């Protein structure tokens, strides 16, 4: 991200003059108080929002220049996990995950194999026929993670994925994310949960008023307070 600025139509500037580089394979936490621009920052990464000025390159694509009709191009290269899971309520666990592959027109057998593999990774292989309403919060988030990674994205963006979960379930989700990161996927996670950030020992970027306040290298944050 180079000199990125985002001002909303209301006149509120959420991000100003932000420069940031995240390398392949990194696991990065973005933290900061409410309204500091965390959500705007990651929304710009998956082109839910457009930067007012500056340049954002994700996996070689200048996301700020993508037209509305072409947004799917970046979305297919990254996975996104939300606090409210955003699962299709009338589709089963299997269908929710498979949908992300069906849009590529993959053969049924290939989809089946990939979906089962990823559901096994998140520990939900035995619940493929359940609907989201039949699952706990933690299980729903696992489905969301499975859906986000099933097509092998190089980047996984997580917007407060543990926000609705109890601490134990939250840590279980973090273990899943850790596994995914070990397989080579870059992870950018926005969170309010300082305990998780401390336990995970990863790179931590602290935002304040739309600017990078501090950028802690891997393993340095847990020893300091902000």
């Amino acid at each position: 991200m180079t000199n990125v600025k985002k001002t909303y139509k209301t006149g509120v500037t959420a991000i100003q003059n932000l420069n940031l580089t995240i390398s392949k394979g990194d696991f990065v936490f973005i933290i900061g108080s409410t309204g500091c621009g965390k959500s705007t920052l990651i929304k710009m990464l998956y082109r839910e929002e457009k930067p007012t000025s500056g340049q954002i390159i994700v996996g070689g694509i200048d996301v700020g220049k993508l037209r509305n009709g072409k947004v799917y191009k970046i979305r297919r290269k990254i996975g996104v996990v939300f606090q409210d899971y955003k699962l299709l309520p009338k589709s089963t666990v299997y269908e929710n995950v498979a949908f992300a592959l069906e849009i590529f027109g993959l053969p049924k057998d290939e989809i089946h194999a990939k979906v089962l593999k990823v559901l096994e990774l998140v520990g939900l292989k035995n619940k493929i026929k359940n609907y989201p309403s039949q699952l706990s919060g933690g299980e729903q988030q696992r489905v969301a993670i499975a859906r986000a990674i099933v097509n092998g994205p190089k980047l996984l963006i997580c917007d407060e994925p543990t926000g609705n979960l109890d601490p134990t379930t939250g840590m279980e989700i973090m273990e899943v994310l850790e596994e995914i990161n070990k397989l080579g996927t870059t992870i950018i996670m926005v969170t309010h949960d300082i305990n998780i950030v401390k336990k995970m020992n990863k790179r931590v970027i602290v935002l304040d008023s739309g600017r990078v306040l501090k950028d802690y290298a891997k393993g340095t944050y847990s020893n300091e307070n902000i």
Partner: protein
Amino acid sequence: MKTFRIIGRNFRDAFKGVFRNFSLSFASISCITITLIVVAVSMVLSNNVDNFTQLVERDVTIVAFIDNEATNEQIDEIKDEISTINNVDTYEFRSKQNITKDMRESSEVFDSIMKNWTDEENPIQNTFQIKVKDIEKIKNVANQVEKIDGITLVKYGEGMVEQLISTFDFIHKICIGAVVALILVTAFLISNTIKITINSRQREIGIMRLIGASNLNIRIPFIIEGLLLGALGSVIPILTTIYGYNALYRNFDGHLFSPFIKLIEPVPFVYTTSLILLAIGIAVGMFGSWRAVRKYLKI
């Protein structure tokens, strides 16, 4: 292969969409059913009115009276001249003897008066009965026939025919206007109902976009869903048209109120009407879905 797979999945998703959102799908189908029944009734009515006017128009005949002194050669000449007139469809020579015979057979009063007439006493004239292709130009044909040597008089119900034509033309226009207006109202109603169905799935569309579905990926299953809703909604109107019209036709023996007002034969009329209803249902369903989804793809 990939394209076929995607098309197949779109149909599968559309079917799932209809059944998993059954209450809203049912609302759309009901709306389509009711409006298409109204369209079906108006189509049956307007087509029958149209058919009736055509039958009446076809019955309008020019009668050209031939001078009783005319010889057979002269009559042949008149016949040749009539055949060259533009817009003449058919013509038939009716001799005074034939006409007299028909009149006597048709009524006892005529019979008692005419039975003692000799050929010389018989005032009835030989005639040519002419039918035209375009009824609106009947006056022009009548004028040309009148100018032929040996023709003493031409009658075709002047004034009455013109009035009939303009009345029928007016009815025809009203019928077309009513059907078109009804189709437009139907399109609007159905597309709004489908819009409500899709509005309730705004979140679903948002999620589809977030996980990388292109606009086409999202739009096509919804448009197919609209097609299915339209097709399902036209089932009852089609059955009503086929069975209802057949029953009506049988019940009234093919005529309405008097033998003069003939109903259109059910076959193939009910099938073409059914196809039109299906086409309207499908087209309007697809259009409604397309219009509704479009709104959520402009992010």
